[in-house]
């Protein structure tokens, strides 16, 4: 039987969507992988063990690749055209940071890894200034 309730029941869902899945972004993710790269380079340099050094190189390359991935996600998913208006050098910053991550992937240069951290921190500042912490993290984590 048709009731008011059944009439008012939506026939379908319409999406005022933001891309699924989650809208959770934080440059910290890239930074942690970049910190791993730096620490692995230091451990590599301090070791005499050939096998250990080989493993360091392998793992560092994986981590550097993850830095690039996390930067990419921030670049094309988090940042939007109106952010570009505020930061006209946004594309250039990401491009250089990704290149720097490639450099860290290819080399065992601790200075390059530190430079990468500094570049991620620049991106972190943009993320914070555009309301990232409030908008793209879940509130309520104990500090």
């Amino acid at each position, binding site marked *: 039987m048709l009731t008011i309730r059944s009439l008012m029941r939506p026939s*379908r869902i319409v999406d*005022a969507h933001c891309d699924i899945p989650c809208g959770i972004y934080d440059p910290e993710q890239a930074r942690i992988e970049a910190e791993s790269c730096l620490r692995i380079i230091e451990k590599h340099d301090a070791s005499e063990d050939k096998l250990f050094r080989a493993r360091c190189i392998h793992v560092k390359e994986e981590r550097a690749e993850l830095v690039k991935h996390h930067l990419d996600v921030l670049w094309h998913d988090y940042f939007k055209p109106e952010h570009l208006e505020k930061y006209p050098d946004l594309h250039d910053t990401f491009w250089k940071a990704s290149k720097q991550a490639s450099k860290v992937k290819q080399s065992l240069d601790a200075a390059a890894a530190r430079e990468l951290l500094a570049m991620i921190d620049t991106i972190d500042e943009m993320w914070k200034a555009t309301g990232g912490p409030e908008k793209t993290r879940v509130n309520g984590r104990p500090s």
Partner: protein
Amino acid sequence: MARARGLSGPLFLVLGMAAGITVGRRWLDVVEVRGGSMAPSLLPGDRLLVESRTYRLRAPRRGEVVLAADPRTPERELIKRVAAVDDASGSAELLGDDPAASTDSREFGAVPLATIRWRAAYRYWPPQRVGRV
């Protein structure tokens, strides 16, 4: 959409619902909003009366809130505001009212007018925010 002036909101709603049954949800339908890209105009959980009559008679206009097939996932239906209409190419730019929380034409480009069939006309739920969209 042309309709008699002076109809009060609730009356329009009741008439709309009644008409909805008679036309079997082809002209009128009710939908629920998911997601926050249309905030503050529309919030998640808002229920809307939508109608498909207008766009059989004319093209969507700037400022109207419309349902459109997601160009990347056609089985998904989006609700966005028309930001611009290009008659020459037969397409419209759709944007969310909250740009920071919206995936829209900035990302997937303009959508064909033919994929826009429904106009959001009226919010009937929640009760404290009943009114025209």
